[in-house]
């Protein structure tokens, strides 16, 4: 379980962002901006000492779990897992190509270390509850992290799951809402505004923190706090920017959402320069 310093985590996040852009531009499709917003959290989980895992033993029953419920952001997951040693960075360049197990959304049957097949929004937290309940039944101390999108919170199943996690006092479950403010057709506040997540989820009996999810220091501190909560499930409302930190480039393109679009080679070049 690597536990990098804050500076090293920031560098790792940059490497992961570079991969996200390279693999989606190479694929010619995918969701780079949905991945970029979530990069600090995913980087902190895999490299900040929060997840116990061994790429050589992806089925270790004691491993901590990360479920990417917003499966379209899998470029950030594949990139982080490549950096963590599950696969090589060359391999993930086959993203979305025929025959590649690095599919457009995560497929647990084809890739070790993927905890759930996602892509139909709203199911990851429930699946995470299954992992958390099993952990309690078996007396194991692993933690299950589930990342959702803020648009995904429109799915009713998520709220069924939130209520269920409270019922079973799942203190081994941490939900992260990557609140990047946009969904497919526009700003989340204009589509279905559920944005005041903290009071809503606190009302369900959870421990909730709202943070700047693109600030690595805040992310690490919040994950530590969540880990220390002993009596209830925990949630991070991770307020981020979709496409961070290359939002100015997207605005210049006239589409700050840039949902489900790869960067052109020219845009990717500019983005890599801005990140590096």
């Amino acid at each position, binding site marked *: 379980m690597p536990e990098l310093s804050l500076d090293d985590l920031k560098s790792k996040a940059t490497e992961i962002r570079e991969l996200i852009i390279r693999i989606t531009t190479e694929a010619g499709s995918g969701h780079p901006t949905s991945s970029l917003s979530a990069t600090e959290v995913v980087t902190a989980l895999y490299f900040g000492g929060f997840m116990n895992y061994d790429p050589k033993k992806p089925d270790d029953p004691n491993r901590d779990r990360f479920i990417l419920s917003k499966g379209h952001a899998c470029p950030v997951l594949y990139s982080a897992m490549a950096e963590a040693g599950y696969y090589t960075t060359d391999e993930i360049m086959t993203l979305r190509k025929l025959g590649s197990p690095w599919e457009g959304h995560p497929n647990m049957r084809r890739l070790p270390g993927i*905890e759930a097949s996602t892509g139909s929004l709203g199911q990851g937290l429930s699946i995470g509850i299954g992992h958390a*309940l099993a952990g309690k039944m078996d007396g194991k101390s692993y933690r299950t992290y589930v990342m959702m999108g803020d648009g995904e919170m429109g799915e009713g199943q998520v709220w069924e799951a939130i209520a269920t996690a409270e019922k079973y006092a799942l203190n081994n479950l941490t939900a992260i809402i990557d609140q990047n403010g946009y969904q497919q057709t526009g700003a989340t506040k204009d589509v279905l505004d559920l944005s005041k997540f903290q009071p809503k989820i606190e009302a369900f009996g959870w421990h909730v923190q709202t943070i700047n999810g693109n600030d690595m220091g805040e992310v690490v501190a919040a994950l530590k706090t969540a880990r220390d909560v002993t009596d209830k499930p925990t949630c991070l409302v991770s307020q981020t920017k979709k496409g961070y930190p290359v939002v100015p480039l997207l605005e210049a393109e006239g589409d700050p959402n840039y949902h489900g679009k790869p960067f052109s080679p020219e845009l990717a070049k500019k983005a890599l320069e801005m990140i590096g």
Partner: protein
Amino acid sequence: MYLGEASGLPLGAATRDAFGVALKELGASNDRLVTVDGDVGNSTRTEPFALAYPDRAFNVGIAESNMVSVAGGLAACGKIPVVASFACFLLDNAFDQIRMSVAFPQLNVKLVGSHAGISIGEDGPSQMGIEDVALACSLPGVTVVVPSDAACTTAATKACLELDGPTYLRVGRGKVAIVYPDGCPFELGKAITVREGSDATIIANGLMVPGAIDAAKMLEADGISCRVIDLHTIKPIDRDAIAAAAKETGAIVVAEEHLHHGGLGSAVAQVVAETAPVPMGFVNVGDQYAESGDPQGLLDKYGLTAAAVADAVRQAHGRK
């Protein structure tokens, strides 16, 4: 007159009751077994298991989507979750969760749909699972079983729980005739010939198996020797038994308590078309929703009767 009564088959337990008894019994020897309930455990009969093993029973409330995905997570951790609800609420309400959290990742979740068919009676069409087999059969890698009587259900429950992979078991609300008084020679994917015959074959499942036995008896007067096959497993289907029936008897009628499209009839017709095309007939609920009423009255009104099956056999036989 209940289905099977004309043949002297005694009335036995409801298949949901047999499932509940078997589940509790199997739970004693397998601590990986857990239940995930959408607050209908006293209807689906998972309740005895939950009372016996409260640490392995999770009632997540009236939230079928969450229920199914939670089961997927439990299965990913090595548990064997049994998810039981009314067939319509399980398959219809949580279909995408079954697709994405169970079928696509091929997780070892045991789906059980109770209150299947129109014979649930007075509660009416909103509670009747009559699309469930079509939905379940549409999912790659999911084993689909519709047992006919209590003994068949006991054996099917055990077989489903022992299989490593997703399964759908369909059970009913009311008492049904006993087809297998001496125990059911059940094997997943293997049809049971419950009556030999040479002129036509009735392939049935669920409570239409005793209905088919009645029909075969009625057809003796017509001089038609009718084979009856209990095709309890729809997926994977017993192609050999179907092909042999088509070749040896030359006409096939399929009887089931399900909509016309996508159920046992469709599955059998595909095999017949591919192996040995012969005249066929179909007895089912049709392409419609039913209504409230007493169970026997509903079966009669919607044509799930031995007489309807016998008529269908005469017609198919006449087209040979």
